[in-house]
């Protein structure tokens, strides 16, 4: 019997029963539908705008769902003390963290998979099946999922030592700041002021880099996305999220559950 698997399955089961989640997915699908309607009404079928809009919507809703889920299912579990009975069973704390993460990723995969499916169907309807850059779209969708995986790991880490609300605020804030990691790095490269340069560069490397994961513009303009970027981004997220999870395990393992 693998406790990580059992926790993951239970997390998934609990998540898919939460109605708020469905309403979010529904809302995202509705927005994509509305976008199609707009492009239809304007008679100029604008694939670019549709892709741009849908991918952005997908990212935002995915992030909201990820933070919400991480918050609901981990921070609340600690705060409401459902964790007490769980940990009285043969489940170690690190197994709880990893099981939760796996369950959350699975939930996100299903949710965002549904949204992505809606988006791809809409797109192929608008473009009548033929459009360039399918590989691009696939990469863009993968990158969105990588962003979600990273945000979930952040939410999980913060859930291990702060209140549910703070955990949500922290992880959203880091997502926003992380979207400017590239700008920060560029600033660090150009500035002459040494302390500012060090600070900007240091932060840009330490912060979760969400800007490199954001290829919405490239995808909507059908610019090719290099295969190396796919590997680099995937590796980056695996390492970064792994470190976050490690920290989460260590923090939860060491603290008193009050």
């Amino acid at each position, binding site marked *: 019997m693998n406790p990580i698997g*059992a926790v993951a399955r*239970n997390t998934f089961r*609990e998540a898919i029963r*939460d109605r708020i989640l469905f309403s979010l997915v529904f809302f995202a699908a509705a927005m994509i539908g509305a976008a199609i309607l707009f492009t239809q009404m304007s008679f100029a079928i604008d694939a670019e705008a549709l892709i741009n809009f849908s991918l952005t919507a997908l990212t935002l809703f995915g992030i909201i769902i990820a933070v919400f889920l991480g918050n609901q299912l981990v921070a609340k579990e600690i705060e409401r003390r459902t964790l*007490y*009975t769980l940990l*009285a069973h*043969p489940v170690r704390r690190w197994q709880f963290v990893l099981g939760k993460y796996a369950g959350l990723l699975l939930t996100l995969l299903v949710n965002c998979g549904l949204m992505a499916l809606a988006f791809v169907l809409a797109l192929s309807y608008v473009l009548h099946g033929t459009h360039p850059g399918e590989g691009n779209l696939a990469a863009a969708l993968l990158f969105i999922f990588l962003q979600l995986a990273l945000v979930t790991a952040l939410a999980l880490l913060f859930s291990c030592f702060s209140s549910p609300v703070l955990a949500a605020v922290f992880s959203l804030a880091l997502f926003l700041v992380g979207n400017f990691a590239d700008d920060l790095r560029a600033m660090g490269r150009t500035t002459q002021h040494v302390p500012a340069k060090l600070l900007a560069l240091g932060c840009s490397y330490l912060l979760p880099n969400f800007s490199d994961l954001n290829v919405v513009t490239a995808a909507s303009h059908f610019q090719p996305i290099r295969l190396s970027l796919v590997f680099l981004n995937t590796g980056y997220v695996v390492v970064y999220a792994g470190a976050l999870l490690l920290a989460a395990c260590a923090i939860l393992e060491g603290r*008193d559950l009050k």
Partner: protein
Amino acid sequence: MIAIECTQLTKDYPVGFWRQRPRRALDQLSLQVEAGEIFGFLGHNGAGKTTTLKLLLRLVYPTAGTARILGKPIGDPRLARQIGYLPEAPYFYDYLTCRELLAYYAELAGVAPATREADVRVALRRLGMESFADLSLRKCSKGMLQRVGLAQAIVHRPAVVFLDEPMSGLDPIGRREVRDLMLELKAQGTTIFFSTHILSDAEQICDRVAILQQGCLRGMGRLEELLAEPRPEVEVVWMPASNRPLPEAWASAAQLLSQNGQRRSVVASCELWNWLDALRAHGGRLISLTPLRRSLEEVYFQDAPPKDASGGAA
């Protein structure tokens, strides 16, 4: 065999926002619980009962001291299978039903898939939960949740069960059912360690109790020993002779029980014969004699005066 053993278990909680000071919740608790025993852990609000249980379950870590359960140190991962735990005011996953929750916990506890469903059914029946087994936990009342909590603590047939105020939130029938359940578990050889501040519950079922006051152990032992009277007394119910006036000293010491003139006096055992001789000389009638046993409540309040009382005396 010793099932639970605490040695000098101490816990300080940091309090204060900026400058954290330690606040002692439990002070060098040492106790031993025999296997197969029902052990009652008594104490006022804030005495440290929950803290002790959380220490034993490794939910919080001790500042000092050690503990062993079934001979293994409490950090031992093999231990978890043999332990059941009901936390104080339990709360569970909103979106599962009672049955699903029990199945989940049974799975985690390593109950084989083949027997899992049957075990869950047994636990549901034992706690009288059949009528709401498929209700989602969000819709359960407080007493229902308490039953769910008890059911999850026993579904995997643990050898040692820790119950934090198992009767809280239950109606009178529920309390009796839980008492019966605990006796039933004991008959099967389960060790039960439970905290409570309801003395009558403890009095009825505990083999031994420990009394905790502000984190310090104030008394521990078999109930008969704790309840044994240092200066034994006897309650005498008697009827004065109708034709003779009652001696003044007697009338004031005795309590009038009923309209027909029965009186109740409490007499020290060593004085009893003299007292009875005097009653005979007076011509009164003896109705009943009952040796007095202290109730647990008296022991408890003697050992652990309520905070406001001690404050008033100081």
